């Protein structure tokens, strides 16, 4: 739960920070190129090779990262749960066809897929969300389907069928609530995955476009200046690592919470 607190803190600073800082997001300060972090001159994180304030840029990067993470997770959540629950509940041939489709998508090399998308549709912020969501929902669909299959065989579902509860009602009242635990856990664990993919794409130059930025892109810029201005690499990289760790711990914590509630 400490992780949750840290995450909220980072998010808050990322939202409010740029407002408080005297420096502009895009303003280049050519007197202060590649300045090391100082408190006195208001460049808390230093500046980059164009003299832009790194604190503001990093915070903008965190914002983008969070947005990517949340949108991608929601996309994968909606598609994955609907797809998986349908396949699992209907079963039989429908299930087989639906899951083979998932397998096929799994087998497609992701990077080629993204490059292809970007080449065909040109770079687009939205496209990154779609690409990341499109990868993550596969796992979600598989997990939800498996869970639905086992829930279907549970006696309380049989009891509901005997009583005469209708199929949609069984899905919503009996199966869905029992899926929530695992879905929440899985979502908190897909968020860091989405962040990582976004950073990875940005790092390769396939992600967000200048002048917009993200943590991955900042890390990429930092690598160019690694020799002389190590802060440009270290600060965004540390932040990225901290966010990822926090989400992972949060996911673990959620899993413990829901597991204990279900078993006891």
């Amino acid at each position, binding site marked *: 739960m400490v992780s949750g607190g840290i995450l909220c803190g980072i998010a808050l600073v990322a939202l409010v920070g740029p407002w408080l800082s005297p420096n502009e997001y895009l303003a280049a300060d050519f007197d202060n190129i590649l300045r090391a972090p100082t408190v006195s001159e208001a460049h808390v994180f230093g500046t980059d090779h164009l003299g832009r304030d790194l604190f503001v840029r990093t915070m903008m990067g965190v914002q983008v990262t969070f947005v990517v993470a949340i949108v991608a997770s929601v996309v994968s959540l909606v598609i994955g749960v609907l797809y998986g629950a349908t396949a699992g509940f209907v079963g039989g041939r429908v299930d087989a066809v639906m899951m083979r489709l998932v397998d096929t998508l799994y087998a497609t090399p992701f990077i080629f897929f993204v490059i292809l998308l970007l080449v065909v549709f040109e770079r687009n912020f939205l496209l990154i969300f779609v690409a990341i969501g499109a990868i993550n929902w596969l796992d979600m669909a598989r997990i939800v389907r498996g869970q639905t299959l086992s829930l279907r065989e549970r006696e*309380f579902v*049989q*009891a509901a069928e005997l*009583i*005469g509860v209708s199929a949609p009602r069984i899905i919503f*009242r*009996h199966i869905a609530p029992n899926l*929530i635990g695992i879905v929440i856990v899985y979502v908190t664990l897909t968020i860091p995955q989405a962040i990582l993919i976004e950073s990875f794409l940005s790092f390769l130059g396939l992600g967000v476009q200048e002048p917009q930025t993200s943590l991955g892109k900042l890390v990429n810029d930092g690598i160019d200046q690694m020799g002389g201005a190590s802060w440009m690499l270290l600060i965004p990289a540390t932040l990225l690592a901290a966010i990822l760790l926090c989400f992972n711990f949060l996911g673990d914590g959620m899993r413990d919470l829901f597991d204990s509630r279900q078993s006891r």
Partner: protein
Amino acid sequence: MSLLDVVDLGIRYAEAEAVSGVSLSVDAGESVGLVGESGSGKTQTALAIMGLLPDKAEISGSIRFDGSEIIGANERQLDRLRAERIGMVFQDPMQALNPYVPIGQQLRRILLRHGINDGREADQRVMHMLDRVGLADPARQFRAYAHQLSGGMRQRVMIASALIAEPDLLIADEPTTALDVTVQAQILDLLERIREDTALLLITHDLGIIAGHCERLVVIEKGRLVEEGPTRKLFSEPQAEHTRKLIDAAPRLDGATPAPPEAGDILLDAEEVSVSYEEREGRQQLHAVQDLGLQLTAGETVAVVGESGSGKSSFVRAVLGLIPMRAGRVTFLGQQLAGPVKARAIEARRDLQLVFQDPAGSLNPQLRVERIVAEPLTVHAPELDAKTRRERVIAALQRVGLDESLLGRFPHQLSGGQAQRVAIARALIVNPRVLVCDEAVAALDGSVRRQILELLRREQESTGLAIVFISHDLAVVRSISHRVMVLYLGRLVELAGGASLFGHPRHPYTRALLDAVPVPDPVSPGGKLSLGGEMPSIISPPKGCAFHPRCRYANERCRVELPRARLVGNTQVACHRAEELEL
């Protein structure tokens, strides 16, 4: 000095006291029974003796084994003690055996710890042990994996592994609870035979088992010692209220069976029902139920009895439409019920309700009691407003002996007995005509079991409910069954009124089931071993009468010709020799 001396044992967990002030002793070669209901602390006590309690348990008092103290002993001393002096048999043998290692290897590893490094000698000792615990063909079982053995065979292997180190004390924690009655009789008989060499501490909730197999009894309740003494004396003159309650709650084979109800309308009529499962993707047909029929009249209770694998659950589930029938016809009040339950009319679904064996599994863990019990109303009486519905739910809970304080609880906050009552309340709230109970009391303690049976009987008297009661244990159904139907390998063996079936069984299998029931009476304890072997696999049932390999009366005809059920006296029985046998 005794072999084992437990003095004033106390076990505490952070907020709860599990055991306090329990003292007991076991002499060399003696057999002592530790009796209590679930949650009484009997398993905790056993684990403390083995030094197996988790670190967070605070233990007080003293446990001395052969003079040396166990509480506070270091891991090494405990290891030696467990390896050489004390053996333990757990309730569920499947979980206690390693699924990846052949049985023989597992036993050999124990011997290796005892410095027997010679492979051939170890092998021989393992074979000898497997033979001693009654496993046929030890050489073959040596290479078998746990999943290839039946429940009874696994428990024999467990006993072999506990005994192979020649311990001075064997602790058996509910060793037969997971087994069929006939297999239970075999395992108890085995424990009796090995007692020549070891002392036995038998932990159980079932006084019937204890009566015939223990010299002394220790009764505990809620972690406290209630009473102890010689078995016969405890049964004849129990001092403590709780002991008396336990004795009363144990199922017995004497006493009256209920008188048959007045002949009413036939509610439910199932004819020639057959159920098959496909194995290995359709290449093999498994005939779980063959040509079974059942006529049920209002106000009547019919028990369906058989060992596990006899097809009793498949039969009723097919009738209810939960699994598909291969053949057969089911009518309810003259109207045909066809197809799976999902396709049946809503009104038809109201009249047939089912109560499952595992109350925890049949209640949705995410819903509160109020919504669980109210669910049938939302389907069958959607016109009710929230207030009336709530009143009906409270009334239904009161009918099963629960009060409204439970409305807001989740299933995991209920005890086993309460959860089963909630499940019954859910089934009864729409006033069904037929209630099917699938082993509905098998997982419950004796006293709770009796209350539930009593509750069902009251319900039947006031509403004319017809009950189908599935059980593997004849003693349990005796007090409520008007008629009893005994199944073996998916076929009818015997169907008769309660009094005549319990008094004059016509089929050797029924006789064997009756004999196997352990009776809480130390003078004539029952639990006799009149049936060897186990139920054959349903994949390849024996030719002729399916029961003939285990039947001591079998003759040539039984081996080749399948007996048809026919009327002998008032009993429907499927045995060629039903008329001539005096059982």
